[in-house]
């Protein structure tokens, strides 16, 4: 299961300091093995297939290592990668997609800009999507991996601040302004698009 498999480690969510150091050593060793600069000189021409394949592998390694350093990013990745590419089997029902696009159009038609809040009816609709998607994700991860993972940001959040509940208190304090609420609402929409179209 990516991102763990790329570095050859078992799934985890939090790392203590010594485990972080071990993971870092693994990351360096993998880079010594995969980095494009380690290719033989003849294969190192930027347009060679070997160089392009090495760029791809090293990019995947570095992106996966970056995700493994943050529990929040691990959750997002596990969500994304374990739900897999959307297919008829694992996608949300088409009716849901239609419902979502209707919602998205309503939001877009408001031409929301910074400083404006979402109307109450749309706030409720947003909450409905969060709950529904949160439950759906938890169920699918359980079904596919046998693991129970908590997705606090997709739980029963009442406000954008709660949507970001894994964040530190000082970060949350920054999110109190309406500008940030709009921004994280946008982020949420982006997450919806990314996962379910």
């Amino acid at each position, binding site marked *: 299961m990516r991102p763990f498999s790329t570095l050859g480690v078992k799934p985890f969510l939090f790392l203590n300091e010594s485990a972080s150091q071990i993971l870092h050593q693994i990351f*360096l060793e993998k*880079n*010594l093995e995969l*980095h*494009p*600069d*380690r290719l*033989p*000189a*003849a294969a*190192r*021409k*930027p*347009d060679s297939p070997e160089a*392009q394949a090495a*760029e*791809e592998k*090293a*990019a*995947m390694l*570095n*992106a996966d*290592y*970056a995700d493994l350093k943050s529990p929040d990013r691990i959750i997002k990745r596990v969500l994304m990668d374990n739900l897999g*590419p*959307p297919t008829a089997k694992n*996608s949300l029902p*088409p009716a849901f*997609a*239609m419902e979502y*696009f209707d919602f*998205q159009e309503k*939001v*877009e038609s408001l031409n*929301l*800009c*910074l400083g404006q809040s979402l109307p109450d009816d749309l706030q409720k609709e947003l909450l409905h999507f969060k709950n529904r998607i949160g439950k759906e994700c938890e169920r699918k991860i359980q079904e596919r991996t046998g693991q129970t993972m908590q997705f606090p940001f997709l739980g029963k959040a009442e406000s954008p601040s709660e949507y970001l509940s894994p964040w530190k208190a000082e970060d949350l304090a920054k999110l109190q302004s309406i500008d940030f609420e*709009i*921004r994280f*609402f*946008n*982020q949420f*929409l*982006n997450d919806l*698009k*990314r*996962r379910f*179209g």
Partner: protein
Amino acid sequence: MPIQIDLGSSPSLANSSSRNENDLDLSKEIVVGIDLGTTHSLVAWSDPAGASNHVSIIKDSQNRSLFPSAVLLNPESGNLEALGWQALERVKTDPTLSKNLIVSIKRFMGRGLKDVGEDAKFLSFALSEDSLGGQVLLKSGQSTWNPIEISASILKALKTQAEKQIGKKVRRAVITVPAYFDDAQRSATKAAGRLAGLEVLRVFNEPTAAALAYGWSHEKPGKILVFDLGGGTFDVSILRIEKNIYEVLATQGDVKLGGDDFDKALMDWLRSQSSVVEWESVPLGVHKTHAEVLKRELSEKTESVYQGPVGSGKLLSREFAEGLWQPLIDRALSCCLKALEAAQLKISDIDDVILVGGATRMPSVRLAVKKFFNRDPNISLNPDEAVALGAGLQARALATQAADKLLLDVIPLSLGLETFGGAVSKLILRNSTLPTEAREVFTNHAENQTGFDFHILQGERELVGDCRSLARFKLKGLEPAPPGFHRIEVIFRIDTNGILNVKARDLRSQKSHGIEVRPSFGLSESELLTMLESADRYALADMEARQLVDIRVEAETVVRAAEKTLVNVGGRVGARERSDFEARLIDLKNALSSSSSENIRRALDELDEVGRELAELQVNQALSLSLSGKEIANMGQIKDK
């Protein structure tokens, strides 16, 4: 041309640049390292077949390693007139030419008119904007220049100089850029290399290059901070060196902070002390040259008397100047603090602070760094040459069979996509190790929608207007289908050069999709190809122009030597020989102002013909001076030397 697109069989930049050289074995090629600086540039090289890790800096015929990043344009035609030292010497002789002198062009690479701001003060040219690419343009006489073309002319001169010294063709290079350069600036630098006839194997961060040069001479593990204050940019990078792996932990910088700004602070003060009319009667370049001299003097002495065209005779103390410079130093130290924070380190975690860049010679900068880090900074590297040496080492590593050191660099600024409401959703966070990637899946939102638009941005701010626009993409060619049918995965990959590549594929069919790119700055691929074609078409004219530049340099050296000869031994030849020599010398000086290399060559040959006797006398005099007082037994050694 900020973004490379790779879509299956679509031709890539690299393909087109090297299509005639696929049979070359990289391990036998000389690859040079180029420090393309704001004020000066340098080249380093090593022979792949030579001793391990032996890297040399290329020097010119006068043993100078620095090549001024200066280009002089013809006042009427706007064509290229002179480069490097020659350009500066021409302006020194005729200060009115300073308004045709381009310096600090690096500040304009990959920039739009809106970004230029205060930097416009470094040039006396009318600026405009490329209506398609958004890149700032310079208007001179009848010509309009793109900064990429100006940088390419500097790179071409460096390439020629390197070829002369090495005695072989140079086709490949590693070029350094400030770590804090964004995608557009990196791509512009790469395009300049390509226009100069170089295949750019790597766009390499300057502080990382300096760290490599440091590691070359210091082979010890630890965490180092590279404080790189160059002519026009400031970078700070924190690296962990361990088992031959150089891992950049964090980088920060300011692409509008360098030695030039210290000159500008002095200029601003001097201007405030004079009348506008008086100040503006003198070309900007002349003020800048005098301000730079004052800055250098204040680095050596605690006070200095200003000797400029306006305000001459003013006594300035270093302490007073430091007051003018303090805001600049504070900006640099603030970057250091941010870099430490990003690397999650304390000042005490840093094992060594390395100073790089000519501006770190200033005592006020050294003292500020010492106070901030509570330790003496490491000044063991030549601040001018460290970056070029590091680039040379990396060039060697890329040219030889096995790289013994591995560099893991980072992306300096986050990369994101525009989302609803003008916000930016971050895809790749800054300080992510390169190469790296992010994947996003998109679907069709409307009935029969056949494409998507994306807007890519770079920066740390949350709103589109506060980040730097890199490019707009159009994913096209989707089959008409109901909403939610298509699943298109778009992969945003940043390569080892720190340059973005985009790929798209349909997750249902696994087919690649076409993406149309509209770069926000710089050159589109077709513009770059047109320029390359023009370069081929005008290759002969370029070669002639180059010959003219070379022969002028040679003739100027001969003129100086001939004048010295006349003073030293002119009285020891007959009156006729002397007058013939003087007449041919005048002919040569006259020929120098013509634009015919043939005329200059003829005048040089004629002077040579009539000056043999004088030349012999001059050589004999020099020999007798060098041998006077020496033992006969030592003469063989002297002769060998």
